[in-house]
């Protein structure tokens, strides 16, 4: 009798456990998957950031033992606690890979896209919920493979996140892990992209025409197309490189290679530039994958907090689509110095100049949208406002790099690092923070602490600039990137003070995230619930109960107007929701 009862109890326990697994781990609900993506991506982001902090130590204090961490690492990574160059290269390659492919893209697309898009278009879920789950799982597998590669003999991939061949062809086995991990991440992105496009095209609520879509949804749609069409090029490149590494082919190896004084065994006949073409065909659209969702979030936050419609919504949408299209035509501006002909470089300079126009239009529209508003300054708005000048600097510094002549001097210098970090770090990551603070009440039903948020913002703002502004000057001073010890060069020695400023800013930036991390977890446990629509927003995600139930909308919403109908003359309140609440 006792035995039976005991057995019965176990049964019900395991049943509960199954529920837990189904609910939180193998969930097909887009909101759960979005949160899974978000937390995983934030963890990866923090990890990638930690790698960078170690690199900053080596740059500021070359040859000195890394405090605390140095003692924990094996002797293939450090020598008496001081970093070895091979480890520095691994950190560099993995920092880039983790931040781009495992941090920002999953956060911007996987997390925000998954959580917000179906809600904003009034759908019950993503079009293919099970595919959505698989996409998250592929992402996790790819990410884990990447992280485990540090344990491979010779350590992780060390040929830069760009993995230029032939260096990557002859690199240690960590590169093979990188390629395999990459194939999983690509697979994940492809599944996600298909899902987003079908969802946005098919599952819009009644009355949600394309020009009533919030700008964020538009940005996700264009992003999904970029992922769908650009990633296969890297997939092809990864297959070629895997063949080179494992089957002894020489797709990227020209004839007559002599490595370490000995003739290479490969037959040759390949092209090192083929890798660059394939890689940048992906990686330039990838840059827009990183930035467009951020722009989308900023547009939402600005419209809501200026209490007026976005200025030039339609031209923003057209620019977005044009931007997406053009991003496939500019890849070779990363390759001006590979000896391409003048005609080719002229073509890519022109396309590069053309592509800057739609970005400028979008940014201008966002700025002009401030005019005539009644501007509130909650934490998400602070981040969104900071995005504007920060992305502005990132975009503007792209100008000299997009023109072949200045690029001849600035290519592969710290200026490049400063440029693209301004786009993605104080640019996209600020937008991501804006998104987290903005939608946190929707996801958890609790509000985040405003004061801690403001502290987080101001510290982050100061130190982000403290990291990246000196890099611009370092680049102008002629310091090349990816140098384990720039002080080997007299240019690096001259600019060493800048490096120290960058490094200390980076470590302070890490400390500045403590208020955020505390706020993020502590706010979840608050007793008092946030308001259903704390920002008085019009878009559909605020028209569901908080947190939204499985299936999102108790009854299908019917959309009656555009996404940014704030301060409509004659309206009862200063915001007119897209759908009048039904049955809630």
């Amino acid at each position: 009798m006792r035995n039976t009862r005991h057995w019965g109890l176990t049964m019900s326990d395991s049943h509960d456990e199954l529920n837990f697994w189904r609910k939180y781990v193998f969930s097909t609900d887009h909101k759960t998957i979005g949160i899974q993506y978000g937390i995983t991506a934030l963890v990866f982001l923090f990890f990638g950031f930690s790698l960078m902090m170690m690199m900053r130590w080596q740059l500021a204090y070359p040859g000195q033992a890394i405090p605390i961490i140095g003692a924990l690492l094996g002797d293939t990574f450090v020598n008496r606690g001081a970093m070895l160059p091979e480890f520095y290269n691994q950190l560099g390659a993995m920092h880039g890979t983790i931040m781009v492919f495992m941090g920002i893209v999953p956060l911007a697309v996987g997390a925000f896209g998954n959580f917000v898009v179906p809600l904003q278009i009034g759908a019950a879920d993503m079009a293919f919920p099970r595919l959505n789950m698989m996409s998250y799982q592929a992402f996790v597998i790819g990410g884990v493979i990447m992280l485990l590669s540090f344990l491979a003999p010779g350590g992780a991939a060390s040929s830069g996140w760009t993995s230029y061949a032939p260096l990557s062809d002859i690199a240690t086995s960590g590169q093979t892990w990188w390629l395999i991990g990459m194939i999983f991440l690509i697979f994940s992105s492809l599944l996600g992209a298909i899902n987003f496009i079908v969802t946005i095209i098919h599952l819009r609520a009644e009355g949600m025409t394309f020009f009533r879509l919030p700008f964020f949804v538009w940005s996700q749609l264009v992003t999904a197309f970029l992922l769908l069409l650009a990633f296969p090029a890297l997939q092809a490149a990864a297959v070629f490189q895997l063949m080179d590494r494992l089957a002894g082919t020489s797709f990227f190896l020209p004839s007559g290679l002599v490595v370490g004084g000995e003739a290479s065994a490969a037959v040759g006949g390949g092209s090192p530039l083929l890798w660059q073409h394939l890689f940048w065909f992906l990686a330039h659209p990838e840059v827009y994958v990183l930035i467009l969702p951020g722009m989308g979030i900023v547009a939402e936050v600005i419209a809501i907090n200026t209490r007026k419609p976005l200025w030039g919504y339609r031209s923003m949408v057209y620019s977005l689509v044009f931007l997406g299209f053009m991003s496939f035509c500019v890849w070779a501006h990363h390759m001006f110095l590979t000896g391409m002909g003048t005609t080719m470089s002229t073509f890519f300079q022109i396309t590069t100049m053309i592509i800057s126009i739609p970005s400028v239009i979008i940014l201008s529209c966002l700025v002009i949208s401030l005019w005539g508003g009644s501007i509130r300054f909650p934490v998400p708005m602070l981040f969104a406002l900071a995005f504007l000048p920060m992305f502005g600097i990132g975009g503007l510094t792209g100008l000299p790099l997009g023109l072949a002549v200045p690029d001849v001097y600035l290519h592969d210098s710290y200026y490049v690092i400063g440029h693209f970090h301004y786009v993605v770090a104080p640019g996209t990551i600020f937008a991501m923070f804006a998104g987290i603070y903005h939608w946190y009440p929707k996801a958890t039903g609790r509000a985040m602490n405003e004061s801690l948020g403001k502290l987080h913002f101001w510290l982050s703002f100061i130190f982000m600039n403290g990291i990246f502004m000196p890099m611009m000057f370092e680049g102008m001073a002629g310091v090349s990137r990816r140098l384990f010890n720039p002080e080997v060069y007299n240019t690096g020695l001259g600019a060493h003070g800048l490096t120290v400023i960058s490094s200390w800013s980076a470590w302070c930036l890490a400390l500045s995230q403590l208020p955020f991390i505390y706020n993020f977890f502590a706010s979840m446990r608050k007793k008092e619930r946030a308001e259903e629509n704390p920002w008085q927003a019009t878009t559909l995600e605020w028209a569901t109960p908080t947190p939204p139930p499985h299936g999102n909308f108790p009854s299908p919403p019917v959309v009656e107007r555009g996404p940014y109908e704030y301060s409509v003359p004659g309206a009862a309140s200063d915001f007119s929701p897209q759908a009048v609440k039904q049955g809630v």
Partner: protein
Amino acid sequence: MNKLSILVVALLVVLLPVQSGGQAEKPAGTATVTGSVKFEGKKPRIRAIDMSGADAKCSEAHGGKRLKPDTVIINKNGTLRNAFVWVKSGLEGKSFPMPEGDAMLDQKGCTYTPHVQGMRKGQSLAIKTSDPTAHNVHGYAKVNRSFNRSQPAGAGDVSIRMRRDESSPPMKIKCDIHPWMNAYVAVVDHPYYAVTGEDGSFTLANLPAGTYIVEVWHEKYGVMEETITIGDGEAKSIEFTYAG
């Protein structure tokens, strides 16, 4: 002092049974092969290296002078230095006591010392740096696992254990940061090997009686071999001659 003597006694206690229990309580044999490696023909033109343009710290170690590389060194008596001589076959199945300590390779003045050396299979190769500049030790092993470790100035030794025979040709070790730096290490399963020095001679002593193939290897001029039969207590001589 006291502690030291205890340590010595303890070591003896540990080592003695091994010594007496093993087959090789005495030298394995009494035969000796001696010889020299001669060079005939035109002396190759080996260009001296000016290190100053690449790394001032390297050339400072040589007083700013150019350095002749160790690739081909013809001794005054017309013999060839840095040739590796070893018993290639005839000792299969026999085991010999291991030398104590590691084989050493030093990096000094951005060159390797010694340029060519032999070591025993199972022994470790300790690579030391005495230079005020950074090196990387890149072992282009074909049989053993290849390695590539950087060694900044003042770093501790890099120790690599050689698990397999690799003597024909020996393993090349190179510093990629200073591409002129290279050294050769032959990993042999027995103690009968030698590197020719300033007089170009070699001695393989304490060989057991038997028939052997003796091989000589030089990094530029390749290999030659000679078969020799030798009895206990005998001493025979081999002369190898490379034509330039």
